[in-house]
Each structure stands twice: as C-alpha cells, then as structure tokens.
C-alpha cells in the first residue's frame, strides 16, 4: 500500500518537499488572505515563471558543473526583486497595489516567454514548472525547502504578533511603533521565496491557490488568528501529501491533484461549518 514511499526516492522527495512548501504557503497564506493580497500572490506566481525561464536560459548548473544550481536559484532573486519593486511602487504611492501587480505580472510573463523562445534547448522541463511534477522535486530541493522553512518559522516566530497587528489595522500598528513598511517588505520577500519553491510541486499556474485555499479553509473553521494559522498549516500539509499520492496513482501533474484535494477539503469544511459561519456573520 505504501510502496510509493518505500520503493521510490522521487516520491519521498516529492512528499517531504511538498509538505514543507505546503506548510510554508499555508502559514503565510493566513496573512495574505486576511490582508486581501490574493492578487499579489497571483502576480508573484507569474513573476516566478519569468524567473524560472531566466534560470533555464542561463542554465547555471550545467555552465558551472554544479548539479544543485537549478533554475530556482535564479528564480528566487528574480521573484524577490519583483516583490520588492511592487512593494516600493505601492508604498511610494506611485500606483495602487493592483496596478503595480498588474504591470509587473505581465512584464514578468512577457520576459519569461522571451527567455523560453531565445533558449536553444527544447523546453520540455518547462512543463513541470507550469503544472508541477512529482519527478521535478530533487533531494537538494527538499534540503533547500527545509532550510527555508526553518528560516521562515524563525522570522515569523519573531515577528508574528507584529505582522498580525498590521494585518488587523495598519494605522493602529504604526501608532504602536511598529515599522509597518519594513515588515511589508519582509512578508513580500518571504512570499516570493515560498512561491518559487512551491512551483515544482504545484506549478506556476496553480501556486497562488496553495497560499489561499488552506487559509480560507482554516478561516471557515473559526477560532483566533493564531489558531487559524495552525489549522491552515495542518490543512496545507495534509492536502499537499494526499494530493501528491493521488498524482502518483492517477499519473497526472501534481499541481492539479494537490489543488483539487485542497479544494475538496475547503468544500467539505464549507458544508460542515458554512451554515454556522454564515449565521454568525449575518448579525
């Protein structure tokens, strides 16, 4: 029954890597959802496409004979730069967040298409970045995900109460002496890193749902903001694991099965809790 775990290293990598990125996305997803930043998540996911395409074009791993130096190492700084640029444009009041995301999102995708087309090698591996693939997650990716997860846990552990206050009300948080702008940039940078690392599991097209669905499911379950965050992580890790196992059995891209599993969890929670939640919100 568990031969997918005992026999195949690629499955162990996919499951552990998927659980790690699923947990991180769900953790940040609560802040993203409560701040209404879903579109920003979508924009950063598309920026990841540009970064991955640049990574494939540069092919640093082959060029420097370092197998571990995959496209992700180019995509992470690329996506972080895009996230910082969106934050800067928003904070300076140059444009609204929606406009900034819209511009950087389309420019990143356009650059990605350009990089794919000027690349001389066939772009078969691009498909795994677009839709997610069990085979795409290597052992080195698991180590990188584990390192990043530890770092994010450390940073969020130190800043969570301030992040939560900003999420509740930016003005009141600022009045309490919190450096709202700096923590905004920090959240954007963490989102960019997590989104890029999640691309191998769920793909560019679906990665923003990885941020939103577990948090939305946890929100239906109720409780405090911290309780909601814990529930979101549990939902993200479970949904990711179950979805990846489905992907193995029915042999379809893992992005689809992971997101559909998470969506099924959301629907089931809505059926069970939805009535109560809606009643609670009606007065």
């Amino acid at each position: 029954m568990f031969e997918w775990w005992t026999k195949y290293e690629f499955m162990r990598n996919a499951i552990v890597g998927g659980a790690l990125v699923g947990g991180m996305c769900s953790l940040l997803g609560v802040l993203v959802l409560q701040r209404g930043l879903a579109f920003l998540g979508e924009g950063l996911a598309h920026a990841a496409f540009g970064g991955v395409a640049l990574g494939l074009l540069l092919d640093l791993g082959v060029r420097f004979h370092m197998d571990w130096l995959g496209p992700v190492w180019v995509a992470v700084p690329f996506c972080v730069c895009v996230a910082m640029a969106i934050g800067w444009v928003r904070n300076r009041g140059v444009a609204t967040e929606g406009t900034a995301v819209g511009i950087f999102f389309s420019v990143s995708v356009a650059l990605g298409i350009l990089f794919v087309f000027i690349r001389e090698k066939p772009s078969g591996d691009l498909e795994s970045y677009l839709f997610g693939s069990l085979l795409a997650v290597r052992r080195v990716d698991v180590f990188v995900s584990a390192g990043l997860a530890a770092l994010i846990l450390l940073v969020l552990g130190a800043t969570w109460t301030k992040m939560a206050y900003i999420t509740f009300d930016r003005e009141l948080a600022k009045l309490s002496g919190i450096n709202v702008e700096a923590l905004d940039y920090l959240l954007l940078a963490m989102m960019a890193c997590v989104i890029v690392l999640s691309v191998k599991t769920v793909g560019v097209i679906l990665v923003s749902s990885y941020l939103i669905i577990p948090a939305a499911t946890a929100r239906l379950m109720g409780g405090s903001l911290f309780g909601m965050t814990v529930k979101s992580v549990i939902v993200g890790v479970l949904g990711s694991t179950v979805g990846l196992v489905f992907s193995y059995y029915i042999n379809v891209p893992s992005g689809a099965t992971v997101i559909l599993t998470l969506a099924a969890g959301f629907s089931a929670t809505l059926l069970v809790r939805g009535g109560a939640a809606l009643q609670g919100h009606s007065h």
Partner: protein
Amino acid sequence: MVQPRIHASREPVLQLRGVGKAFGDRRILTDVTFEVLRGEFLCLVGPNGAGKSTLLKMILGLMEPTEGTILVLGKPPGKTPGAIGYVPQRKSFDRTFPATCVELIVANLRGSWPVVVTKQERDKAMAALVRTKGEHLAGRQLYALSGGETQRVFIARALVTDPQLVVLDEPAAGVDIRGREDLMELLHHISADDYLAAVMVTHSLMALSRTAEKVAYIDGTLQAFGLPSELLGHGKLAALLGGHTEDGDG
C-alpha cells in the same frame, strides 16, 4: 456648555508652534500655534479639507510637519510611548478577522497582537472597559459591535495605557443617534477628568457643547482659538456648526 476650570497645575501637555504642512506645492496648513493644558478638552473644528486630519496625524507622530514644532509633554510625538491615546473615526472591520474587544485593547498595551492574553493584561483591559462602561463587551467579536459600542471599545483601548493626552478623530461619525448620546456622555466624562487632556476633531455642535473647554477653528491656518462661548459668535464657525447640529460628526 462646559465651563473652563482652574487647575492647580496647568502645564501644557500639547504645544504647537508655527506648525505648517505642504505636500509638494500643495499647502495644507500654515503657522498653527496653540497649547492644550492638562485636563483641558479642545475641539478642533473646520470645514472639510481644512487640514484637521493632517494636524491630527502630525500630533500623533504619523506625519512630520514641514515647518514648526509639535511637543507632547515637552518631547516630539512618537518619543512618548503610551502618553497619547488615539480614538479613530469609526472603523469597519473585516467580518472574517477573528478579533475580540479584549484582544484589541491588549494589542495597544503590548504594541503587538496577542497570541495569548495574560490574566494581568485581561484585568487591565477590563479596568479600561469599566471606565467606559463597556465591560459587557469584553469577549465580543469586533465585527459584531454597533457603531456606539465600537467607539466605546476604542476609547477603552485609548485609555488602557493611562495616557496624558487623548486624540479623537470625529468619534461620533457613523454612530446612530442612540449610540451618539451614550458616546457624548462618555466624552463628557473624559472632559471632566482633571488629569487627561484631549483634542477632538468634530463637526457636531452637540459634541462641542458637551465637551469643549476650548475651540480651535482651523481652515488652512488657525482662524480662531478660545472659549466656546466666545467663538460661537464667530460668523464662519456658527455657519459651519449650524449645519451639523443633529447629524453628528462627518
């Protein structure tokens, strides 16, 4: 009308000297100078776009003046943590944000959102709620409160750090008539406090008459400053407030 009181110690809590603010070429405020003494309740009035909110933001330390100085207890705003309590205009909250009244009050006490509220913090939050007669609201979710209840909780939030200055930005705006009456009683209570100084932006003659010991009429600059009884004869001020006698702030 509130009568000005003679206090044993009337040291200034808030001092503005020649304060001005411009955004690029657009000038919002010019040369505003006044003081608010301990125990004094000042109402800031003026037409929309007169610069009242900008002035409040500078007093709170959210914005730097382009020229002039602002001192709270002799120090620049932001250098006196806990000394200023702030009551914003009625906020509406995301119905899905899980936040109770006690958590909101404790967040101001801590300067961050609480994961767990300690007994000591809960006691302080409850004491602040008792001061505003809102103890029954402690465990309620913020989104479920009426306008008047929300402002009552925000006043408790402002008082929990034992501030020396309370800044209120049109606290009765968006509050229904019954809630507004309760709120005015609460503000009158604050106004009677000999220790607490307050600055309140208002458009309401009812709020002004129930609370103000001094009135500052702002319209790009300080047009008039003094006792309410003196200033209500000021043509522009009377015209301004005349239109807002029953509809509260905003």
